């Protein structure tokens, strides 16, 4: 469908994927985030994927300093930030070099031609100017714009230094995209004003450059058409755009509000988990206390101390920090105190690729502690789902008196998507009760390890007269919690703790099969690959393939019906952003099941297209 405006045809498109790439100093993350907001406000469903280097400011123009922001928005459900960009906005030669291969054949390439200077070409290892390569023109729709010069022209006479002028050019690109995708400009102009409220001269400059980009689209004759992506059919409601880390923080703050109890976060900064701490620090008014500890060990230690004191305690980290916390997790298991440990997975081992995503902490989450120390493990499936997962993890921890490990990953943590704001009555009921009465021998004694039918022990907190007791890392007597070296008692306690964690299965919903209940092949995913795998399943089903999909939110305990579901398919296929950890786990848990695998460990989410190809081969 297309309509005619004054000068340009307006074409309707269902889904678009755009990638902005430039130097880490070029403001690509800001450009991407701002454009995301515009599309969210226009009612599109969307998903984003920021991809930036570990260096804060790599040398300008260098290949390893390229920073990118991809977003996909559409009129239909958007499950991932997209496999291949339809539009690539490249601000310099290095950005072009590292990203061009991803651009869809025939896609639109918008290039800041002004940045293609000899020295920049050299830094990007180009022998000749790629813009002069005839293949470029024949493979893509190339739009060359000297954004440097146009930005300078727009800001002539403003008195800004040339460095300050150069920093505005990302707003030129943004203005151009607003024009191309027919977005109203007023909200953006207002947003610029707000953003630079303290420096009105920059607000004015950026607004000018933004407008220059917009007008350029209209007048330059370089574009034959504009596009319009209609609002999506998202469920009615109020929406906001959230990243995974923000949603996690929001989930915990919501728990404080639902229970009226203090939520305590003890944490130490680490990419890509840091924002959870930063965001929760802003939630003081909601009953959140944050404590930036001296290291990860102290982060979880402070949380366990706070849990002993009756707070709803959590700690957030990424792989290297999780490794440091493992001795502490053992203590949380044996003291049976409620605690949520959030692990935002990233590329490992060791420092690995801190800004890139991975799903390789699964086995550590399940088994990475000394001794027999099981704990429930949950994984969030999308940025917005981090909200629900955080609430669920805290609910399980406090109900069952156990530490709970919540897995997210760098892709979810930084990526964003629309979050339908729930009304309070859609939230789970959460009540936290402390033991206030003596519970043994006709109410004359308190036994901290006297369990109920579900094997849950009571939670008595300091300040409660008559229930004074000690907890600690030494094995406890099964009743009094006093130190016990009795081997039989130890065995009993090990088995009891394990059984208690197994009992949590009563709160684990059965997996739902997407597609036919039995068939040729079952895709099994967990955590942040949900969108890609579901997208692949949809594509395969649309092509008439007998492929179904289950997604695991619960890794321990596994859902009751999972074994039966796995057994209902001829083949089980597990795609993961790791070397095959879930596949390994399923083999151990369900003898006879031997999943096929598809593993990517390149720091990027799985592409729907690639997965469809792999599954088709396996069929």
């Amino acid at each position, binding site marked *: 469908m297309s309509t005619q405006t004054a000068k340009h045809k307006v074409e309707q498109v269902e889904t678009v994927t755009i990638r902005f790439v430039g130097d880490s100093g070029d403001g690509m993350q800001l450009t991407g985030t701002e454009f995301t*907001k515009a599309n*969210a406000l226009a*009612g599109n469903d969307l998903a984003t994927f920021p991809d930036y280097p570990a260096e804060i400011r790599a040398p300008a123009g260098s290949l390893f300093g390229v920073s990118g922001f991809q977003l996909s928005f559409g009129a239909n459900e958007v499950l991932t930030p997209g496999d291949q960009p339809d539009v690539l906005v490249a601000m310099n030669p290095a950005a072009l070099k590292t990203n061009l291969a991803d651009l869809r054949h025939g896609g639109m390439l918008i290039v800041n031609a002004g940045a293609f200077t000899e020295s920049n070409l050299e830094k990007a290892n180009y022998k000749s100017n790629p813009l002069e390569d005839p293949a470029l023109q024949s493979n893509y729709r190339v739009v060359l714009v000297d954004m440097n010069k146009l930005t300078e022209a727009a800001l002539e006479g403003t008195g800004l230094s040339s460095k300050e002028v150069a920093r505005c050019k990302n707003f030129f690109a943004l203005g151009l995209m607003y024009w191309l995708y027919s977005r109203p400009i007023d909200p953006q102009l207002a947003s610029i004003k707000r953003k630079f409220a303290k420096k009105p001269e920059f607000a004015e400059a950026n607004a000018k450059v933004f407008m220059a980009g917009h007008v350029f689209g209209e007048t330059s004759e370089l574009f034959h058409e504009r596009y319009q992506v209609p*609002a999506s059919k998202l*469920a*009615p409601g*109020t*929406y*906001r*755009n959230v990243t995974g880390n923000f949603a996690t923080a*929001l989930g915990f*703050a*919501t728990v404080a*509000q*639902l229970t*009226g109890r*203090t939520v*305590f976060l*003890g944490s130490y900064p680490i990419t890509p988990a840091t924002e959870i701490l930063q965001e929760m620090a802003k*939630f*003081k*008014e*909601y009953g959140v*206390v944050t*404590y930036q*500890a*001296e*290291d990860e*060990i*102290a*982060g979880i*230690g*402070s949380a*366990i*101390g*706070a*849990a*002993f*004191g*009756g*707070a709803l*305690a959590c700690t957030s980290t990424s792989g290297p920090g999780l490794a440091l916390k493992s001795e502490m997790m053992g*203590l949380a298991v044996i003291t049976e105190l409620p605690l949520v440990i959030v692990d935002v997975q990233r590329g490992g081992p060791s420092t690995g690729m801190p800004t890139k995503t991975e799903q390789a902490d699964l086995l550590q989450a399940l088994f990475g502690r000394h001794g027999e120390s099981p704990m429930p493990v949950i994984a969030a499936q999308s940025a917005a789902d981090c909200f629900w997962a955080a609430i669920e993890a805290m609910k399980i921890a406090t109900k069952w008196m156990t530490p709970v490990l919540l897995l997210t990953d760098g892709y979810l943590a930084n990526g964003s998507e629309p979050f339908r*704001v*729930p009304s*309070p009555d859609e939230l789970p009921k959460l009540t936290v009760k402390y033991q206030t009465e003596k519970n043994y021998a006709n109410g004359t004694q308190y036994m901290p390890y006297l369990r109920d039918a579900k094997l849950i022990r009571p939670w008595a*907190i*300091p*300040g409660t*007269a008559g*229930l*004074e*007791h*000690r*907890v*600690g*890392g*030494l094995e406890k007597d099964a009743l009094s919690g*006093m*130190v016990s070296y009795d081997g039989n008692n130890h065995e009993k306690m090990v088995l009891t703790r394990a059984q208690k964690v197994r009992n949590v299965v009563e709160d684990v919903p059965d997996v739902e099969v997407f597609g036919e209940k039995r068939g040729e092949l079952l895709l099994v995913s967990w955590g942040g690959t949900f969108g890609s795998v579901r997208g692949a399943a949809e594509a395969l089903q649309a092509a008439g393939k007998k492929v179904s999909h289950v997604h695991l939110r619960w890794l321990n305990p596994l859902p009751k019906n999972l074994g039966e579901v796995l057994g209902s398919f001829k083949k089980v296929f597990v795609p993961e952003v790791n070397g095959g950890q879930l596949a390994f786990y399923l083999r151990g848990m369900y003898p006879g099941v031997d999943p096929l695998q598809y593993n990517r460990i390149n720091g990027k989410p799985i592409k729907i297209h690639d997965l469809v190809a792999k599954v088709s081969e396996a069929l």
Partner: protein
Amino acid sequence: MSTNGQTVTAALPVYTKKDFESGVDPRWCPGCGDYSIINQIQKTLPSVGVKRENIVFVSGIGCSSRFPYYMNNYGMHTLHGRAPSFASGLKVSRPELQVWIMTGDGDALAIGGNHFIHAMRRNLDMKLVMFNNRIYGLTKGQVSPTSELHKKTKSTPDGSPDYPFNPPLLALGAGATFVARAIDVEGVHMGGVLKAAAEHKGSTFVEVFQNCPVFNDGAYTFITEKANKAEAQLRMEQGKPLLFGKDNKKGIRIDHQRGELEVVVLGENGVTEKDILVHDATREDPTIAFMLAGLADKAGFPTPIGVFRNVQKPTCEEMTWEMIDAAKAKPGAGQLTKLLAGNDTWTIK
């Protein structure tokens, strides 16, 4: 303070030492200095004016760290070196509790060195009592960070090449607002130090020289033996001149030329009591506290015991809750619907 703990309203029960005994018999070796420390703690607590259920003992790992099991309070026996981290989370979230940290020299200063200095610098109101036997007791006799240079132990059969920490210096350097030293066999004095520690609001470090008769017997006889005591100990008492020795004839004076402390004898070279440094632990500037703490390492000087420093500063938990209370007091604060929706929303019909 708006915390989720109970506030104390009822009058304080009258406690005796027995109220603080858990009924579990301590399992330290016969003659261990730890007995004396627990004895003094249990004797002191009835007079500090805090309800038994509002007192929490947190410990790490080591002989000394078994302490909480023997106390009839709330207690956590945690991980080697990490007690300050648990105590910090507990104290920040429940400021109304009185939190004690019971630790050893290895526990606090080796594996826990990082947590130790940060607990001191933050000025959380926690009372850290370090049992210093200059050896690893529980693991049966290896050097600790306070063992003397060249010390022969099971892990250093040819003598240790490591210089030791001076714990009060370390605590002062880390910013502790209360720093003191006591000796296991000087029970009455230790009781006084512990009482002052209990009453201090802020990061509190008490080093107790503790004899380990099994692995490091006699580590402190140089100052505890009757014959040496008067010459070897310098009792620091608030507002009193720093005198020591037989008949209190010796004193500590500031040598202004060299900027050091020196030992002088009353009546010699015209020295009178007016020349002697008067002890004042409440000096904001820690320089003199540092000088006094440093004496323990200097030949020819007595070892100071008592309170080196006792100054008042806002605590970390107070400041934390001031911020929280201020945030909660803002108009419209703390509404669930506002939290969920935030500022930038859009609506789909």
